[in-house]
């Protein structure tokens, strides 16, 4: 009896192998029947790329803080006075991301600081003279303007009343107050010329040191959650929040003269225009421009103020909020939609392959799962240095595509695996060929599972697409980021609410789609 039972079990196993062999055929059929479609899709991608390259506007980047936004706007405005399209990608991220983008030619211009260049980019703290910096930058095909006229050094700031109470005037004074809580930006915490060396130089004893977003740090400082934070010396927030800058009594911080970095391939007329900005912004003006930007929540307006100060007419009509919302939402949908389309086109075939329980199937599911565990920000950062991607919409779409893959692959595979053996065999015994079995029997039967995977991907994509703004790809993340930077909840909500509504609409749309796409016999 046992032997018989064993035989039955093995019978099942064997016909599984048989099934796997059949599956091979099925996939071959599938690939053959789909190959032209894939070809079409792949040939569309280069067209899409060529299109974006041939338009080839001058792209100006900026880092993710107010002053960089304002300087970026100013450069954009100046370069727009020469013929040719100029595009501004504000708030692309930290130094390394923006520098990589410049190095790879993804952007042509961005504002930088001499101290950052020698410490962080060239990693040669000794190279502090403008000439030596310029010489080294040239090896990367990058040029540098003369200083714009102000030194925006790093600084440590405290609440004025607290500093007075504890009698703290310079960084050395911090040594006596080990209990103080430090909230530092992630960049400052990690930089060569940042916290680790500062702590060593001044022998600072504080233990409570945490990383916090720059704009949020001011709020934390104001309500006493932290006592000391890093800041830029021209930061308008310093005066606004009644903070005091601690004197760098051991001359630890190098000079941070603002300059513009540009590709040496930038045409001469544009380079000359950029150089007209040299020496035109002193510390007082920059602080004022920063304050203007933060008060009006409008970087373009702050840039206008600069041109007014030089006697030009810098007025720019502010874009109505309604237009902005539409622009953001459309871009958001474009990012999420295009990436979802790619996820579906690759996810379903991969899911079909993964539904065979072999090594390849395991590998596909494993890969998709691993991608899912990479934090979205890290994934973006990983893609940015790859030449093909860089700081662009492509990168955002690629990252979203990878995120959208797992739910679709997994649901396709499990949907197919759930089809009972007797139904699979009925389809085979009937004499249907493998392609027909897949298209007319197996995929429709797995449709509910596949669609629910696509729905999950869509909702994830809508949410994750807000991060695309980090690399200047736009979308509803743009107001969220600049709102975060300006500590302005209204601006944040301008992005957050439409994103949430969008996710709900997409969910609702797919529920509707279920009724159209899932065969009626499976819904009864």
């Amino acid at each position: 009896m046992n032997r018989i039972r064993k035989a039955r079990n093995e019978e099942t196993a064997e016909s599984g192998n048989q099934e796997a062999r059949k599956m091979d055929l099925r996939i071959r059929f599938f690939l053959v029947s789909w190959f032209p479609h894939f070809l079409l899709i792949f040939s569309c991608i280069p067209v899409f790329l060529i299109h974006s390259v041939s338009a080839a506007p001058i792209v100006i980047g900026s880092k993710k803080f107010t002053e960089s936004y304002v300087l970026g706007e100013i450069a954009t405005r100046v370069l727009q006075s020469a013929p040719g399209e100029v595009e501004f990608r504000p708030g692309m991220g930290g130094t390394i991301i923006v520098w990589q983008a410049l190095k790879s030619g993804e952007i042509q211009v961005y504002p930088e600081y001499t101290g950052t260049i020698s410490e962080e980019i060239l990693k040669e703290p000794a190279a502090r003279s403008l000439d030596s910096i310029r010489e080294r930058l040239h090896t990367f095909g990058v040029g540098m303007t003369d200083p714009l006229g102000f030194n925006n050094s790093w600084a440590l700031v405290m609440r004025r009343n607290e500093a007075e109470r504890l009698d703290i005037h310079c960084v050395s004074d911090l040594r006596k107050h080990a209990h103080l809580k430090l909230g530092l930006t992630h960049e400052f915490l990690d930089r060569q010329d940042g916290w680790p060396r500062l702590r060593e130089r001044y022998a600072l004893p504080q233990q409570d040191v945490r990383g916090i977003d720059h704009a949020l740090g001011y709020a934390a400082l104001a309500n006493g959650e932290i006592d000391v934070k890093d800041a830029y010396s021209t930061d308008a927030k310093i005066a606004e929040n009644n903070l005091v800058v601690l004197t760098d009594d051991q001359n630890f911080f190098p000079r941070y003269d603002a300059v513009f970095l540009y590709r040496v391939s930038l045409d001469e007329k544009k380079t000359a225009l950029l150089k007209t900005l040299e020496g035109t912004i002193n510390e007082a003006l920059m602080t004022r421009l920063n304050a203007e930007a933060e008060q009006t929540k409008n970087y373009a307006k702050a840039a206008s103020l600069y041109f007014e100060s030089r006697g030009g007419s810098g007025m720019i009509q502010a874009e109505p909020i309604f237009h902005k919302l539409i622009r953001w939402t459309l871009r958001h949908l474009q990012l999420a939609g295009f990436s979802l389309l790619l996820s579906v086109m690759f996810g379903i075939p991969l899911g079909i392959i993964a539904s065979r329980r072999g090594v390849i199937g395991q590998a596909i599911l494993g890969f998709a799962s691993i991608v899912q565990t990479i934090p979205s920000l890290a994934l973006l950062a990983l893609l940015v240095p790859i030449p093909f991607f860089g700081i662009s919409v492509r990168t955002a779409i690629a990252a979203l595509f990878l995120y959208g893959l797992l739910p679709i692959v997994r649901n396709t595979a499990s949907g197919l695996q759930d089809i009972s053996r007797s139904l699979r065999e009925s389809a085979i015994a009937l004499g249907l060929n493998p392609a027909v079995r897949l298209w007319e029997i197996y995929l429709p039967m797995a449709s509910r599972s596949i669609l629910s995977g696509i729905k999950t991907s869509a909702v994830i994509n809508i949410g994750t697409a807000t991060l695309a703004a980090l690399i200047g790809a736009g979308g509803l993340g743009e107001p969220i980021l600049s709102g975060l930077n300006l500590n302005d909840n209204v601006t944040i909500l301008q992005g957050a609410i439409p994103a949430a509504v969008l996710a709900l609409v997409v969910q609702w749309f797919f529920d509707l789609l279920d009724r159209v796409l899932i065969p009626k016999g499976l819904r009864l």
Partner: protein
Amino acid sequence: MSTLVRLVDVSKCYGDAAALQPTNLSIERGKSTVLIGPSGCGKSTLLRLIIGLIEPDSGSVRFDGELITPENIAALRRRIGYVIQEGGLFPHLTARANVLLMARHVGKSQNEMQTRLLELCDLTRFSENLLLRYPVELSGGQRQRVSLMRALMLSPELLLLDEPLGALDPLVRASLQKDLKKIFARLGQTVLFVTHDLAEAIYFGDEIVLMNEGRIVQKGSVIDLREKPAHPFVSEFINAQRGIASV
């Protein structure tokens, strides 16, 4: 009377367990052959070898004189109908679509298909009004009738039935048995029927093939089995079933 299917020294192992010992069997045209035996005796394995769901380890299976190979099995399957216990109907297709599925793919005309469909409804006593229902909207008996229509759609030379009535309640089962027998007679259909129920085997089988532990124990009419048992197992099997029947 000619042979439609001939198995010569066909065997099948799963690991070290032999599901089917080297076996010879011929299925004659126009006859109903019933494979009977306890669970795991190899009767389903034999059926699945003929329809090519599994390949034999040794020996040969010939259909209409042609050796069954992976290359020609697809074409041969169109000449064989196959009905399983649960019906095997595709849940996302209506009864009609299930029945017409294969005919559509071999390029039959709409007219031809419609005529055949009505013929089959009549034959299997399946109401035309139910054709647009989905399998979940049909009773077990109705589903088996649809499954039978699907199997007969292309007028197969051989009909394989793997415990087709096993999941039905006794009343439905009895009425379907009667209908099936009539249908086979009317079509002069060659049938290979798998069951573990002796009464059903006697009812359908021109020839009964009793199997146990992967081999054919005896082949013949029910009278042969009862009066000239080739092995003690034959009597044991017959008596066991008779015992249940008489209670």
